[in-house]
C-alpha cells in the first residue's frame, strides 16, 4: 500500500476540513472496501480521513416511524437493533447478509452505500466501462500504463469477456458492471434521503441520486462531490417492506440478485409499491413495471409471480448472465410475498 496522510477527526466539521485539502482524499470507515482497493492500487488517496471516531456519525435514532441512521453505524448494529427490525425488516435483512461476521463488525452503512463496484475488471484497474484502449492496447484507468493485452479496437472487456455477474438491465451503454450495495435497494424502496456535508455546506438528496451511470473513463458512479461526506440516511417507515436475496454461497458472498420492496396498503390491496433491484444494473434498478403490476392487487402467489414477470420484461442479459433474468423474476415474487408475511414455499 502506498503511503498517505492520516487524520482522525472527532467532528463532522473537522472531517470535512480534512477531506477538503489540496490533494486527493478518501473517507475511511470500516475499511473493508477502501483498504483493499488501496492495496490493489485502484485508488491512491494522498490523505485518508478516518470517520469512525466521530460520535455524531454513528447511531440509530427512531422517532415514531422516522428512522435516522448515522453513516458510520456498523452493519452489526443495524442487524441487532430491535426497533429497526420491526420497522424496516428490508434494511435488517439486507444488512444481515452482507459479507461475514467480521465484515459486519467493521463495515458501516455509509461504506456499504459508497463502496465501489465489485466488478473484477474494475478491481483490476480497467475502469467501469469495459476497458479504455489506445490502438490495440488496453490502458489501466488509474496508472495510464499499458497492459500488454492485444485486443480488437471494438473489444469490450465485459461484453466480450466473462460477464456472469454483470448487469442484465441498462446494458446498452458501456457501463455493464452490476451495482454492489446491498443496502441501497431497501433504502431506495423506503424513499430514504441521504445527507451530504461538504466544503459548500450541507445538502440532502434521495439515496437513489447518490448513483449515476458513468459516461466517460475515470468518472465515478457516485455523485458525491470532492470532499463531501455522507453523514446520515433518513426514512419514514410504515409501508410493509422486505428484502429477498439470491446468492451462490450460503454466506460470505455477494448477491447475484437482491430485491427490496416497500408496499403501502389500502386494506388488503397494494395502493403504492416500490420495487428496487440490486446487482442487476449499473445503478440500483427501480422495477417500475413490477410496481405497476402489483398496484391495486392483493399480494398472492399469482399476483407476485405476475409482478416478477413484469420486472424482467426489457431485460437485456449479456452472453453469460441470462440466469439472472430467472433469479430476478423469483426474487421479486419472493420479496413481495415476504412483505405481506407470506412464506413463498407455502403458496
Amino acid at each position, binding site marked *: *500500500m*502506498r*503511503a*498517505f*496522510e*492520516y*487524520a*482522525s*477527526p*472527532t467532528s463532522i466539521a*473537522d*472531517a470535512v*476540513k*480534512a477531506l477538503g*485539502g*489540496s490533494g486527493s482524499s478518501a473517507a*475511511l470507515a470500516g*475499511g*473493508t472496501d477502501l*483498504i*483493499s482497493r*488501496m*492495496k490493489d492500487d485502484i485508488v491512491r488517496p494522498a*490523505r*485518508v480521513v*478516518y470517520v*469512525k*471516531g466521530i460520535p455524531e456519525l454513528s447511531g440509530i435514532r427512531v422517532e415514531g416511524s422516522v428512522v435516522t441512521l448515522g453513516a458510520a453505524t456498523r452493519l*452489526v448494529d443495524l442487524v441487532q437493533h430491535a426497533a429497526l427490525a420491526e420497522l424496516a425488516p428490508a434494511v435488517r435483512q439486507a444488512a444481515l447478509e452482507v*459479507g*461475514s*461476521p*467480521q*465484515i459486519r*463488525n*467493521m463495515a458501516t452503512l455509509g461504506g456499504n452505500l459508497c463502496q465501489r463496484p465489485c466488478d473484477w475488471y474494475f478491481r483490476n484497474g480497467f475502469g467501469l466501462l469495459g476497458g479504455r484502449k489506445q490502438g490495440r492496447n488496453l490502458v489501466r484507468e488509474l496508472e495510464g500504463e499499458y497492459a500488454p493485452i492485444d485486443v480488437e479496437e471494438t473489444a469490450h472487456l465485459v461484453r466480450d469477456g466473462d460477464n456472469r455477474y454483470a448487469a442484465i438491465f441498462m446494458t446498452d451503454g458501456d457501463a455493464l458492471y452490476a451495482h454492489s450495495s446491498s443496502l441501497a435497494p431497501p433504502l431506495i424502496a423506503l424513499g430514504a434521503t441521504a445527507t451530504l456535508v461538504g466544503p459548500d455546506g450541507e445538502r440532502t438528496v434521495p439515496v437513489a441520486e447518490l448513483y449515476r451511470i458513468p459516461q466517460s473513463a475515470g468518472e465515478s458512479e457516485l455523485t458525491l462531490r470532492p470532499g463531501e461526506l455522507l453523514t446520515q440516511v433518513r426514512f419514514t417507515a410504515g409501508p410493509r417492506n422486505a428484502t429477498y436475496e439470491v446468492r451462490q454461497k450460503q*454466506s*460470505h458472498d455477494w448477491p447475484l440478485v437482491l430485491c427490496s420492496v416497500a408496499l403501502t396498503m389500502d386494506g388488503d390491496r397494494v395502493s403504492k409499491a416500490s420495487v428496487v433491484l440490486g446487482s442487476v444494473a449499473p445503478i440500483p434498478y427501480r422495477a417500475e413495471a413490477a410496481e405497476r403490476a402489483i398496484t391495486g392487487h392483493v399480494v398472492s402467489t399469482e399476483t407476485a409471480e405476475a409482478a416478477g414477470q413484469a420486472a424482467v420484461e426489457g431485460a437485456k442479459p449479456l452472453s453469460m448472465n441470462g440466469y439472472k433474468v430467472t433469479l430476478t423474476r423469483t426474487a421479486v415474487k419472493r420479496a413481495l410475498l415476504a412483505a405481506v408475511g407470506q412464506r413463498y414455499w407455502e403458496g
Partner: protein
Amino acid sequence: MPSQDPRGRSGPSRRDFLRGSGVAAATAVLTAPAVDALDEARAAELAQGPPVLSGDTTITLQVNGQAREVVVEPRSTLLDTLRNRLDVTGPKRVCDRGSCGACTVILDGDPIYACTTLAVSCQGHAIETLESFDPEIVPAAFHRNDALMCGYCTPGFVTACKALLDKNPNPTLEDVRRGLDGNICRCGTYVGVLQAALDAAKALRKEA
C-alpha cells in the same frame, strides 16, 4: 499459558533468523534522512483542520491486556503491526484482502479482520489475539476434534470461535455456522471445526 514473546523461547527461531539477516539492509533505509518539508500553504491548511499524521508515528495499542508502544506508518495494517512489529504472530497473513479470516483478531469483543484495519485507528481499543486464550478450552477442543489439516486457517478459526463463545456460551450448530462464516479452510476441515466449537462450549460449561 505460553509466553507471548517468541524471543523468550530457547533455541533459534525462524523469525529471529530472518530478522538478523535483514538488519544490514534495513539500516541503510532507516538512517537515510527523512525530511518532511511542509510549504507555508500546506501548514496553514493543516492548522485549520484536525491533526494530520504522516510517516513514522508512535502509537500505543492495548494488546492482550498490555499497553504496547510501537512505531508505525498510517498505512500499516493492524495485522502487519502485530506480526512484524510486536511479534504477536498468532493472526496469519493469508489473503490480505478481508476474505479468508486467517487474520481474525478480537477488537473490543468483536471479531474483525486485522488485514483490512489500520493500526493507527485501533488506538484506545482492546485487541485480543489467540496468544491470550486459555489453551485448555478452544485450542484443546480443536486438537481433540481433529479440526485442522495444514493449520493455516486454524488461528483465525480459533479466534472467531472464542469471540462467538464469549457472546454466546451455549450456541446451536446453526449459531456456530453463522459465527464462523467469515473463515475459510481450503483443506475442508469444517466438520471438525464445527464439532470443536460445540465441544469447546461444552468444556466452558463444565469449567463454569
